[in-house]
């Protein structure tokens, strides 16, 4: 069925695609900031069409809000229906609104932040492509297009993470992200095969309608398919143990980190699980795996975030942790709560990254928390934004993160049993969140101002004489492939200021969409998508939800207080603790040794296998036996035949005569 909603859906996809093409084709010619404005305009139009899509949907009655439309068929044969089709339903509209809305602000911020970079046009072309890929992913109407969008997002993340392609650390991080994402893509494809084998259709609506008829509860194929789908979700959403690319992805420009972490990419896994809820509800075994991994991730990431010293990496680990909440939520059936947290998280995480970008600008590219301090007076606006984002992240009332995170945890507590343990671990994670968030704030903004901050208070923005790689300290220049020479802070750039102000407001009031006992806007809006779900309609008593909210608020306050005591009131505590628990500190600072573990279990065996193939398979079997053997046979055969070619004409003639005579004689004899 096609109508104005799907028309707007196609337009939502078209805008960033046109944007990326136009910017890419004219990359040499766009003067000044034109490419940035074009990119922002494309996403703004896309956001406008998303709103139009939303309006059309709201004009239909709630049980008639799922539309799909296909432009053309790729393959339609017996049993395969690969079409270019989109699905416009409340979930995809919800995601499209978040993706385009937050991306638009990130584009706006980038116009300033990337101003003096030599790859300005290239940057915006990639950025638009990233948004386009994510929109393909969330609007896809069948598994086929979902996989396409999924792979596009991986490719776009590679392009943007290694945007400063002359930094060896950046290119390595890009490759790492891409490889792990491809690992997830393979999982997604195999999972799709498992599902497709039984449902016989790639179309979401028809496949989900078929699920109750073709699958029995916890059937082996279904569980396997769901586990493989989860593998894809884990790789994209940076869940343990496929998370190691995410902190390395901080090598990209800061707005890219905001884009990856807030609006696009990492939320894809959460979306996938929510979209596939009819499958996961029939396969609770797989859903439980998702919940446990989500819970594990949120604890692991939170503990690592406490000891990291790179400001962007701390925020990266906090993203992992928050995505853990969402994955846990949508896996146990708290769809609206998980997606609500996805939205509020998009607001405050984008805000935090933008504020971090502003501090990094003030520090002339330095990202280490050890070097920062006392920026409170020098960067008042950034400070306010960072505190708002931090309060929302740690779940302080009345900020948005408080309502959304505790919505998930209340659902877990309500389901009871083993889920209660996950819920309690979630509260532990929330406590850690308060600590690491305010560790960042106290270390960057409080205490004695560092020279850069003092300079800025006198109106002079610090400038590095020799730009250095923040990770390795290597000297760099400012040519294409490296960060540009300029540094920018929100206080002096109006596009950055506007983007951050909007997000700050949203981070504060975003929670009003869903307040227990008062309003449940998100749940009501998403209801048609989850109408067939058994778990989504679980009603939690308003009192229990408020109890959860109060507990959440107390835990957040406790976490922030601990951070205050350690980092402000008695600053000597932190080094003392570090010395006292040196072993634990080393374990956490090395990120639980996940990188080393993966290196040992996968990278090294793969490299060893590669060398084995090179030295044994390639050299001895292929090159030595098969190729050289064939050459030897041909050479020996031709040497024998060559001797017949004497070059004497009369010899050839004699052979001809003898041969023909023999043939004639044969026919003569055989005919008589």
């Amino acid at each position: 069925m096609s109508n104005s909603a799907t028309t707007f859906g196609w337009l939502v996809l078209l805008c960033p695609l046109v944007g990326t093409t136009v910017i890419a084709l004219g990359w040499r010619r766009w003067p000044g900031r034109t490419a940035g404005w074009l990119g922002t305009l494309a996403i703004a139009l896309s956001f406008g069409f998303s709103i139009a899509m939303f309006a059309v949907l709201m004009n239909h009655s709630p049980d008639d809000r799922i539309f799909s439309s296909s432009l053309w068929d790729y393959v339609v044969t017996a049993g395969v229906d690969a079409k270019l089709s989109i699905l416009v339903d409340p979930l995809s509209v919800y995601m499209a609104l978040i993706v385009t809305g937050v991306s638009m602000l990130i584009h706006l911020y980038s116009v300033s932040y990337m101003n003096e970079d030599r790859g300005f046009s290239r940057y915006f072309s990639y950025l638009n492509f990233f948004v386009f890929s994510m929109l393909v992913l969330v609007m896809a109407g069948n598994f086929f297009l979902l996989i396409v969008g999924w792979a596009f997002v991986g490719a776009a993340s590679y392009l943007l993470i290694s945007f400063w392609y002359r930094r060896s650390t950046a290119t390595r991080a890009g490759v790492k992200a891409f490889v792990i994402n491809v690992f997830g893509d393979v999982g997604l494809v195999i999972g799709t095969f498992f599902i497709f084998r039984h449902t016989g259709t790639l179309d979401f609506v028809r496949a989900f309608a078929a699920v109750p008829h073709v699958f029995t509860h916890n059937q082996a194929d279904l569980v396997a398919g769901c586990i493989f789908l989860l593998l894809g979700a884990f790789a994209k959403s940076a869940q343990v143990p496929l998370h190691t690319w995410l902190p390395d992805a901080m090598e990209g420009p800061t707005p890219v980190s905001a884009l990856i972490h807030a609006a696009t990419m990492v939320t894809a896994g959460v979306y996938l699980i929510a979209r596939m809820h009819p499958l996961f509800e029939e396969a609770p075994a797989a859903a439980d795996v998702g919940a446990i991994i989500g819970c594990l991730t949120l604890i692991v990431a939170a503990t690592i975030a406490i000891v990291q010293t790179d400001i962007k990496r701390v925020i990266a680990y906090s993203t992992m942790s928050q995505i853990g909440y969402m994955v846990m939520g949508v896996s146990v059936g708290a769809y609206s709560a998980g997606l609500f947290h996805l939205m509020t998280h998009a607001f405050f995480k984008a805000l935090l990254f933008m504020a971090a970008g502003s501090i990094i600008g003030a520090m002339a590219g330095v990202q280490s928390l050890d070097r920062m301090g006392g920026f409170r007076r020098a960067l008042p606006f950034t400070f306010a934004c960072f505190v708002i984002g931090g309060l929302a992240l740690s779940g302080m009332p009345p900020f948005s993160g408080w309502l959304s995170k505790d919505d998930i945890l209340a659902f877990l507590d309500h389901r009871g049993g083993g889920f209660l343990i996950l819920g309690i671990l979630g509260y532990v994670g929330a406590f850690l969140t308060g600590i690491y968030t305010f560790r960042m704030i106290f270390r960057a903004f409080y205490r004695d101002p560092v020279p850069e901050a003092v300079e800025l208070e006198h109106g002079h923005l610090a400038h590095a004489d020799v730009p250095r790689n923040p990770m390795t300290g290597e000297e760099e220049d400012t040519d294409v492939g490296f960060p540009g020479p300029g540094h920018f802070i929100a206080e002096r750039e109006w596009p950055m200021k506007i983007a951050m102000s909007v997000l700050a407001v949203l981070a504060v009031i975003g929670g009003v969409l869903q307040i227990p006992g008062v309003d449940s806007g998100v749940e009501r809006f998403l209801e048609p998508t989850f109408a067939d779900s058994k778990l989504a309609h679980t009603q939690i008593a308003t009192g229990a939800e408020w109890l959860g909210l109060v507990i959440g608020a107390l835990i957040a306050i406790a976490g922030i207080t601990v951070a205050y005591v350690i980092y402000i009131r008695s600053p000597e505590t932190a080094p003392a603790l570090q010395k006292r628990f040196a072993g634990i500190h080393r374990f956490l600072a090395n990120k639980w040794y996940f990188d080393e573990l993966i290196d040992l279990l996968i990278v090294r065996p793969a490299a060893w296998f590669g060398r084995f193939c090179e030295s044994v398979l390639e050299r001895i079997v292929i090159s030595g036996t098969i190729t050289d053997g064939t050459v030897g046979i041909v050479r020996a055969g031709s040497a024998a035949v060559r001797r017949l070619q004497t070059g004497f004409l009369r010899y050839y003639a004699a052979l001809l005569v003898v041969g023909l005579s023999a043939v004639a004689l044969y026919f003569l004899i055989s005919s008589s």
Partner: protein
Amino acid sequence: MAIGWYLVVSAIIFCIGAAGVLTRRNPLVILLCLELMLNAANLALIAFSRLHGGEDGQIFALIVMVVAACEVTVGLGLIVAIYRRRLPIDVDEMSELHG
């Protein structure tokens, strides 16, 4: 009509031609011997044509003559080219095209 005699004559001419091709070393003579062989074949064709009363054999003989004329043209051209380059006029000497 007794076809035997015609065929015997044809066979004798053919054998003379073949023997010439095999034994002589002068390319000019070899070409002449080739002509002998072709004409022997023509004789047999026309004899059979008369025997059966059809025209096919005669037409075929005419075509063979055309082909023979072409072949002689090319062959003589080659021989003239060899002569001009002052190479020995001897097929046994021209044995460079060996494996």
